[in-house]
């Protein structure tokens, strides 16, 4: 396993805790004690794919946002090596009145690309999304399938060394779903580092090197994919 051979983790979580809730609300005596994450620890090593499994409301999405740096842990620490980490976020910042091409640039910039890179990606995005002439039409006129195609293509070509994926393996209409799933799987199997959140056992069995099982905001079990998934399925 990759993780076992590499001594230095890229990302390291230690007793991470986080809760949404109004900071000032306690003043009025109705403090929201909704705790999303209580105590999570695990490491992510270069090149591996770590699967995160857990039921609804276990805090999986929040966990990805913490790893990405969008949110900051209230408790514990997250250390990151000097690599670019980003969520595979679809349709970030897209505006309905802009064309597909313009949204692709805007999305690329927001996902951390330089303007040159974002423009360079246009040809790849145009080809992969198969939007053809629609790429120059306003995004607001797209069908939901077309929106998904563009959103996925932009995120896919803007993805960084470390990719955080939240359930979205394939999106869009049937053909594109197959194509995008294949693209993501290829990305996962190459030596890209991936943290993949899912409640789909089959997906994780196929892709993850290691699985972390999150339950009620804490690390419940962590280890070999087959072992953890077996225990999870039995629960």
């Amino acid at each position, binding site marked *: 396993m990759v993780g076992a051979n590499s001594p230095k983790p890229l990302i390291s979580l230690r007793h991470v805790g986080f809760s*949404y*809730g*109004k*900071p*000032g609300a306690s003043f009025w005596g109705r403090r*929201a004690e909704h705790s999303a994450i209580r105590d999570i620890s695990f490491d992510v090593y270069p090149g591996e794919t770590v699967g995160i499994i857990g039921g609804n409301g276990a805090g999986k999405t929040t966990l990805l*946002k913490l790893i*990405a*740096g*969008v*949110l*900051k842990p209230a408790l514990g620490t997250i250390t990151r090596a000097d690599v670019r980490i*980003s*969520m595979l*976020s679809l349709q*970030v*910042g897209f*505006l*309905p*009145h*802009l064309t597909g091409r*313009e949204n692709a*640039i*805007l999305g690329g*910039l*927001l*996902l*951390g*690309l*330089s*303007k040159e890179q*974002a423009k360079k990606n246009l040809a790849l995005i145009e080809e992969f999304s198969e939007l053809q002439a629609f790429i120059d039409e*306003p995004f607001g006129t797209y069908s939901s399938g077309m929106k998904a195609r563009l959103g996925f293509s932009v995120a896919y070509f803007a993805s960084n060394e470390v990719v955080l994926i939240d359930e979205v393996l394939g999106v869009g209409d049937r053909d594109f779903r197959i194509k995008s799933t294949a693209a993501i799987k290829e990305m996962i199997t190459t030596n890209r580092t991936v943290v993949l959140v899912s409640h789909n056992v089959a997906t994780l069995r196929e892709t993850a090197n290691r699985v972390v099982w999150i339950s009620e905001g804490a690390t419940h079990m962590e280890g070999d994919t087959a072992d953890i998934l077996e225990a999870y399925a039995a629960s």
Partner: protein
Amino acid sequence: MTSQRIWGLITFKVYAELKAESNRTYAGYLWWVFEPLLFMAVYYFVFGVLFGRNTEDFVPFLLVGVTIWHWIQSSISHSASAISQNRPIISQVVVPKYVFPTVAFINNSLKFLVIVGLLLFFLVFYGFVPTERWFGLVPVLGAASLFVLGSSFLVSAVIPLVPDLKILLDNGLRAMMFMSGIFFDIANLGQQWQDLLRLNPVAVIVEQARLILLRNEGPYFYDLAYVSAVGLVLLILGATLLKLFDHQYAKAPW
């Protein structure tokens, strides 16, 4: 993100928002000219035709004040909602938060530059002779920009976290408009009131612009230094707060 990337993002977002905004209407970019022409026409009609003639050059006096106020007010109130309007972005990608008020400021300032052009055109049409002194408007608007950007940063940092302040801001802006001598000349007030009102940077900005354009006088160094200093303090304070609260905006439930 490197500063070059951030600047790329800011400029493209300015372009994207302006285009998206203009595409919402049939006349599009023409509204940049039509809208100020309309409000100038309204002020001209009300104060120049209905009430007019008793005060000399009241319409140009008013228009200089109104256009500058329009810029300051719209930049600040757009910045107040800049971060919450970009919630979908903030909750998914790591991006320095000052990007959003900066975009709002640049957007409003570009529109304002068109209005300044129209205003100068109107003044010439009205009978004022342009002189080299009109270039004095550049440092005045430069100092004013520092103040507006600083206010925008501060407002954008605080209001998403304490939305209640938006109500105070709206009323505060209205109060500021009346205390900035938009509709009257501060110089006509008693000395102690003049001194008090000139603590308000907007009043100073408006007065300096009027001196340059209508009286062929100024701009005065100390007044501009005062506006710049206040602007710099606000800018540093706002930028510090935006950095300090950086992770709070994605967390806030609204």
